[in-house]
């Protein structure tokens, strides 16, 4: 399980850096193929479909952890996908934008991750397949100091991991 967790975190790094060009891409790509994450986005049972077609993340309003209607629609599809693909588990990463103190943002990210976890469990995903972690404001996706970036950073990302959970 330990190994899987590490792989999952590395995959998380890839997912987060998808639209940026950073040094972690190399290591993460290796980990992704090692964990059997290859697949076409047109295959509805592929992780690529989950990440790109359904969408692996939902966004939040400032200082909020309430799921929007759009977020619930995405998460409903995520739950269905997870139901159809019991060989995968997921780590839900909660994030905050930089407008807030460090500790508070860790706690806020935990709320967001937990909101997603709770919704997925409600939609039938077994609790032991879903873990949460908060990165607070430590891992921004978009780096400008404007609302256009902040909106992308206030997110919870469902990061797939190979393995049926604990």
């Amino acid at each position, binding site marked *: 399980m330990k190994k899987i*967790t*590490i792989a999952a*975190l590395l995959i998380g790094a890839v997912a*987060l*850096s998808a639209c*940026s060009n*950073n*040094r*972690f891409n190399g290591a993460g790509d290796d980990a992704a193929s090692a964990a059997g994450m290859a697949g076409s986005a047109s295959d509805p049972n592929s992780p690529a479909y989950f990440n790109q077609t359904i969408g692996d993340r939902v966004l939040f309003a400032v200082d909020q*952890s309430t799921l929007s209607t759009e977020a619930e629609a995405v998460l409903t599809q995520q739950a269905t996908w997870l139901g159809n693909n019991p060989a995968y588990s997921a*780590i839900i990463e909660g994030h905050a934008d*930089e*407008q*807030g*103190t*460090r*500790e*508070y943002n*860790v*706690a*806020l990210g*935990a*709320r*967001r*991750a*937990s*909101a997603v*976890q*709770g919704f997925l469990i409600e939609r039938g995903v077994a609790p032991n397949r879903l873990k*949460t*972690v*908060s*990165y*607070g404001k*430590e*891992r*921004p*996706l*978009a*780096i*400008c*100091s404007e609302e256009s970036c902040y909106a992308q950073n206030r997110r919870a990302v469902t990061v797939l991991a190979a393995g049926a959970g604990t």
Partner: protein
Amino acid sequence: MKLKKLLALGLALLAPSLAPLTATAQDGGPLRIEITEGVIEPLPFAVPTFQAETGSAAPYADEITRVIAADLSGTGLFREIPSSAFVSNVTNFAAPVQFADWKAINSQALITGAVAENGGQITVKFRVYDVFSGTELGQGLQYTGTVDGIRRIAHQVADTVYSRITGESGYFDSRVIYVSESGPKNARRKRLAIMDYDGANVKYLTDSESLVLAPRFSKDGSRVLYTSYETGQPQIYVLDVASANRQSLGTGGGNMAFSPRFSPDGTSIIFSLEQGGNSDIYRMGVNGGAPQQLTNSPAIETAPSFSPDGSRIVFESDRSGTQQLYVMSASGGEAQRISFGPGRYGTPVWSPRGDLVAFTKQNAGRFHIGVMRTDGSEERLLTASFLDEGPTWSPNGRVIMFTRESQGEAGAPALYSVDISGRNLRRVPTPDGGSDPSWGPLQN
């Protein structure tokens, strides 16, 4: 006017109606009353380069003198008179001081000294004079150390000078632990670092493999609590400063644990533990044991800090709907809200004197470092910027160090310090970016 009285006046001006600052300030009531605003004139001092008593000591004497001058000037309370203005110089540490020559350049304080080096051992002797009364402040004193430690010896001398003139203990012979940051904003690498209070002698205590947050010194400066993601989850670790050995405190179980601080006696820690998305404050022994829950609400409770006597805890909570500051007993229970101004308040830290709480405030799109009394009265904002956060107190409760992060895609964090009056804002130099400082105790 006596030197000490003059500076006491200055200090009183720096913090009108806040803490009682020195015995003189308390006793000298008339000096403090009525004046609530005014231009602070730093006290002029002269520190002629210390005499080299052995042939090899000259470079050390030079460096020690420069460090002492920088320490004193860096407080904003003193102003160094350059040697180019000197009428005469001190050529013999033992000879009587020619006060008239120092009066002539309006040097209120004079510091003289001598340095000897023998087999790598440094000895520094020094005296402090009140020029205008023509008297010595305290007795001549001597410090010894090794060549490697000459900055520390100089800081000890400066602490003594500061203490003799202000009546307060100093803060120069102290260290700061902080998070050294490098790399782009979306792939920051962070590691723990320790340095002298002035940014010298940086050493790294962890590598950058795992994200680390918010190190916090124990009161005696021997240990550091911090949060690391090395298991993938934020968990609390304790690090021995001398050996750099670290161990997990096993606080979180499978849950996230963060924002730890030691109790003043160093036997227990308080921290935030997350369960089901909700963060509450817990306390546990540093040697383990079952965590005791101190808050119990569906709100975010975090950033706890003990009062210096260990009886109370100040923390932040959004139970009212926004982040605010609360004080509760160290055993938990009912909490009193102490912040009521506009905006949000976080990261409270009890001052070592016990009289004030420093905090981060967010209001109208700006961040501030501020202080208030422990009942929430007399709030004063000391700074304003795009992002200031995470205050830590100097050992004497006079200066606050904090993180200031610049705006935009190239934004980077740096360490700054500011007097509790809001004056003397300074950047503390670090080799890379710096954040989350924790100021340790005086070492001597």
